[in-house]
């Protein structure tokens, strides 16, 4: 069992939590939205949205563009199966 914190430690801990929450709130509501509007980032974010890219996907099933890629590459393979399975001379 960890020792029970003193009232002063509890108060200090709560103040640190409040400070961390304030920093996060400022960054997420003020700083990141402003940086996102910087033209190079804005262009890239819009480009990703347009192509259906989710840059935070953890697995291919979370990536909308993966399904589209499979459809497109399958079509290319149906058109020219030899090219994908036979070694070129």
């Amino acid at each position, binding site marked *: 069992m960890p020792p029970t914190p003193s009232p002063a430690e509890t108060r200090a801990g709560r103040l640190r939590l409040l400070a961390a929450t304030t920093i996060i709130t400022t960054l997420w509501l003020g700083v990141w*939205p402003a940086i996102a509007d910087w033209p190079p980032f804005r262009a890239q974010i819009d480009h990703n949205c347009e192509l259906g890219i989710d*840059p935070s996907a953890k697995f291919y099933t979370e990536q909308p563009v993966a399904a589209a890629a499979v459809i497109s590459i399958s079509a290319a393979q149906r058109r020219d199966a030899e090219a994908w399975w036979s070694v070129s001379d």
Partner: protein
Amino acid sequence: MTADASSDSASPSRRGGWNTEDWWSVGIALVILGGAFAAVRIGQPADVDQRLQAWVTAERELDLLLQDGQATKAERKQAEAAVGDAKKKVAPNPLSAWMGKTSSWKSDPRAAFFDSKGRSTITGLLAIFAGMGVLFGVGACFLGRRLDHFLPGFALLSLLAVAAQVLADQELIKHFGLEYALWALVVGLIISNTSGAPTFLMAAVNTEFYIKTGLVLLGAEVLFHRLLALGLPGVFVSWVVTPIVLISTFAFGQRVLKMSSPSLNMVISADMSVCGVSAAIATAAACRAKKEELSLAIGLSLAFTVVMMIVMPAVIRAAGMSSVLGGAWIGGTIDSTGAVAAAGGMLDNTALQVAATVKMIQNILIGAVAFGVAVYWVTCVERTPDAPRPRLSEIWQRFPRFILGFVGASLIFSLLSAEGRWGDAVAASVIDGVSKTIRGWCFCLAFVSIGLETNFRVLAKYFAGGKPLILYVCGQTLNLILTLFMAWLMFEKVFPHAADSLTR
């Protein structure tokens, strides 16, 4: 993960019998997958044959359009979207409306609780966490926890998981591929290292339970026939290079760097060579790595992912590489699945498609990696050097059971998906409609739990001497060289017509 990280949860896994955390994880995942499958079957449309025919027709129209060779980019995209839509209509999932998730937002976080059509997702979130609370609550109860203690803690843990996901959904954060796993860790770490977590919250903190359940659900997404999606060149780039890099990096860490923790070495080697966070989670669970080791490996991987996502497209352009070669190089080397697509998209559509497909094939590898690592750990790493090779019964005794659930789910869904068009559509409906959302929340709950149980000072200890960083840099360098060589050999020398057919 190991007992010293969580004595409460590791011990049940090692007990004999069926009432263990591993089997409960498998059971809960099976209930979810089975329920989703039953919902798809019950909700099967009466005109399923016509819908299957519409899918075939959409595919034929796409083939005709491509044969013609005159199609514009927009026409091609439209025809491809029609194929995807036709497939979805074959097996709609009535449960998908209840699978709450948050959405991307820019400056107002309230937007995270509305979907793309402007509908509130709060009911769905409440439904999904209520369902998960019941399933995990029953499991926790049988594993010796008190339900009346577990449920209030689970409610707060769920709120923290949603908060972490909302942080990850901010568009700039999302753009840099900084996934929810990182923010879930941050949320937990902030609480545990400032005010401390309230006791009732800790009653629901059970990292392994959430991770193992999430992994069994992830197994359903590991569809083995996807391995062939990029023909033979894809197999060589993804399935030949990746195991070589994984094994070489692990051996380098053990023999040259002499890393004190083989499990940290393995988790970093796997997340760097296979597919980032998801591979780290799977191998950490398979080799019972400590929670701090998993956190460190993920932090390292995400930091390098952001850099590589920006640098690699610039290098590829400067070197004048073809889109196919550049895409394959990106897909085989950048850790994170999302960042791979973002980096490929910075080049062009062909590079994007190749990069996303190579990474998808690598994703499939985590099934084999997790199984292989679990067997290797039980037979070699956990054995004392002078002890005889363990017998089959001993291996079975110590083998993590949830890995069997993971592999079993993968085999069942691979067979279903490969069975034909109907099976493929049903598997996709179960995964896209239900299991991947619940799996995501399971991992999010797990990472908040890790943060709540971790002390900053303990985390710093694992980085001592910078060995993890050296391991990552050396392994990634080998990965970059081997992948580039193999992609060049396959797409430019051995199968040049395959690359041509993609750019045509």
